[in-house]
Structure formats: structure tokens, C-alpha cells
């Protein structure tokens, strides 16, 4: 239950970061579908993704390898990735 709450909070925070960094005006963290494909459905490009990754590194004190960017396809996958990095 605790895990679920933490994960939910992380998904919410990642959504906030993406909205802020990409200046998305029509989405809120509450309405951001965590399974929305950031590249194919939201139109995020490599420079946007690099920016988001740098901000996430700061926020969660992790290192996101450049080669791992393609794994960050949606908010749920990003949250999973951060969790794994924090445990490692």
C-alpha cells in the first residue's frame, strides 16, 4: 500500500516536471495519462527528453545514462526507472 502511494506521488511529480519543462498548458498532473507515449503521442523530441532527464537527475539524485533515454517512453516507465536507480 505504502509502495503504491509512493509510486503514485512519484508519477504525479514527474508529470509536474514534464508539464513545467515543456510548458504544456493544456495538461495538469491530475489529467496526465501516465501511459501516454511521450514521443509518439505527445511529440517530445530528443532535446526535450534530454532536458527532462537532467531535471529528473537533480530531483531524484540519480544518474540517467544517455543510452537509457529511449527507455523513458512514458511517465510510468520513468517512475519505474527512477525507482530501480534509487534501489541500485
Amino acid at each position, binding site marked *: 500500500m505504502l509502495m503504491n502511494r509512493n509510486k503514485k506521488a512519484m508519477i504525479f511529480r514527474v508529470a509536474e516536471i514534464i508539464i513545467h519543462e515543456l510548458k504544456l498548458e493544456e495538461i495538469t498532473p491530475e489529467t496526465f495519462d501516465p501511459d501516454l507515449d511521450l514521443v509518439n503521442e505527445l511529440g517530445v523530441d*530528443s532535446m526535450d527528453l534530454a532536458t527532462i532527464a537532467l531535471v529528473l*537527475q537533480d530531483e531524484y539524485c540519480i544518474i540517467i545514462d544517455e543510452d537509457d*533515454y529511449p527507455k523513458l517512453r512514458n511517465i510510468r516507465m520513468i517512475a519505474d526507472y527512477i525507482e530501480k536507480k534509487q534501489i541500485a
Partner: protein
Amino acid sequence: MNTTDITTIPQCDKETKKWKFSELLAEPDVRRRWEKVRKFFFLRESTYDMTNRCNIRCDGCYYYEGEKQFAQGNEDPVAWRELMKEEKARGITYVVLAGAEPSMVSQLLRVCYEEMPLGCIATNGFKLIPASVGYRIHVSVWGNDETSLRVRRAKNLLSKQIDNYRGDPRAVFVYTFTRDNINEVYEVMDTIAAHDCKITFNVFSSPVGYAGPLRHNKDSLERTRNVMLDILSQYTEYVLFSPYSVAAHTYKHGLHELYECSYPRRNPSTDIGLGRSFRQYRADLSWDRDAACCVPDTDCEECRHYAAGSAIVTARLYRHVIDPDTFKSWLDYVDTYLAVWVVGYEKGDNLCRGLIAPP
């Protein structure tokens, strides 16, 4: 002049401190520059050979190498308009109109401009492109008039280029440093400055198999680096370049070895970025993923081309977020490339005056 060896330049704090991105953005000038350049992250380019005709023939020309020169030119405006619409639909926001000589088909340039308002034309500057085509125009300069006559078989080329493009806000002159025109740039710079034109630098990158006199070697790259830095300090207001641009384009290794080229020709990934969206169209409107980069038929090991660097260095943001000077250098590089490629974009002062080695 002392030779500047980039490999001996000390790098700031890399071993002792891990910088957070937010710390690198803490300085107000750096934050402002980041916000300025990131507004243009939406640019997604593709390149297009407009015709297989040219009004001059230059030694070492990229267009007349490989298969693309044999494509049957399609000069039907309806087909080009349709192509531009399709390109827009698949997310392309910036077009580079090149080979062989785009000024030969000005009606097609107008069609492209009507459909896709951001872009650039690479021209030899011999024939004026009408003002109704509002793209950035890169006018290629390969030395003084004597050298142009020898290498490009064109008489009084610089004078003609300046007659056509002086005072034209679209125009940026592009001086290509070859092995044998390095010091001629001073004479060209005097002319450029006297006519209040803007210039940027390119480094000749040999086509595959080229072994002629223009090909660079270690010594000519070092001399080019020193001359570029000297010109940068002497003609600041006329030159769109930065110390990091000098470092990246005159390093002993080419751009691919330094940064891993992100164009499809060297990048198999279709997940995101250039590997996903970039196409290089031939004059018959066909394209081939295996050959796709901004200067096809260049020897990748030798590639130091300014157009390639604009995309490849910029894409490696992550590698430059390691210390303040390296990040500032990257910002200077991106600010320079945007000023060179986007009409109306004003370059700021370089944030990092020192020479930083590519990370």
C-alpha cells in the same frame, strides 16, 4: 602566433565536483541564454537537393560525388509543394535547401518557402535569390578571388557575392577553411567587414576517396584553429562563431568520433531525434536512409562540417552538463548555430572565452 593544443587545456573541477543541472543554471546570464536557445528545440530538419544543375564546378564539391548527382531532377512546383506539405505533416519544421545550386530553381525555393517558413539555402552566391524567399542564405566562400578562380573556376566570385548580398539580412557568408587557404581569410575578412557582412566558418571535410590538396592534416587543423581564434578576437562583430565552435571543428578527431554522429547514416536508431525524422532528399525527391546525413558522401572520419556540427554537438547536451565552463561552451555553440541558421536570431556575447576541449 603560438599553437594552441586543445589536449593540454585544463578542465574545470571535473574530478572533484559533480555539478547539478540546476547549479549550472544558477548564474542569471547562463539561465537567460538557456531559456533563449531552448525556445528553438522544436527545430527538426531535413535537407533537399533542389536540382542537379550548377553554374560553376568546384574542386571537392560534395554534390558531384556518389550517386546523388545522377538523380533525374524533378522541377515540378506541384510535386515540391506536395512534398513540403508531407514533410510538415511528419513533423519537419526546418528545411535545408542545397545541391547542386538552388538559385537555379528560384520558383521551387518560393514554393518551399510558402509551405515551410523556416529554413536555409546553401548557395555559391553567383546568382541572387529573390527577396521573396525569406530563408537564411549561406553564401559559400573558399578563399580570395584568385583561389576561387583556381578551385571554383569562377571569376571575381567574392565581389559578385558581395554585390548580391551586402546589406541582406538573410545572408551569412560561410568561409570554408581548406588546407591551402588558411591565411587568405584575413584578406576575405577585410572585405567582409568593409561591406558590413556576417561570416561563419566551415572546415573542409573530404568526400569519400578524396586525396586532393584541400584535405586537412594535423598541422593544417592547428593552423586553422589559431587563425579562427585570431579572427574571432579581431573581427568580433562580423563573425558568428565561438571558441567552442573552434575547438569542436578543428580537433584532431572528426565530429563522429568526438560526439557520435546522430544522422541516420551513422545512427541506426529510429526511436527519437535525427535518427527518426531526418531525411536527405535527392533532386528526384527520393531518399535513402543509409545515405542520409547533411553532407552525404563526406568521409565520416573526416567530417568537421559546420552543418553537421550544428546538429551533432547540440544533440549532446548531456555530455556538456558537467561543469560551468563546458556548459557555457555548449550554450555558446548552440547560440552560434541558431544565429547562423535562423533569420532574425541575434547571437549573444560568448559566455565562455576560453578554449574548452570537447568532453
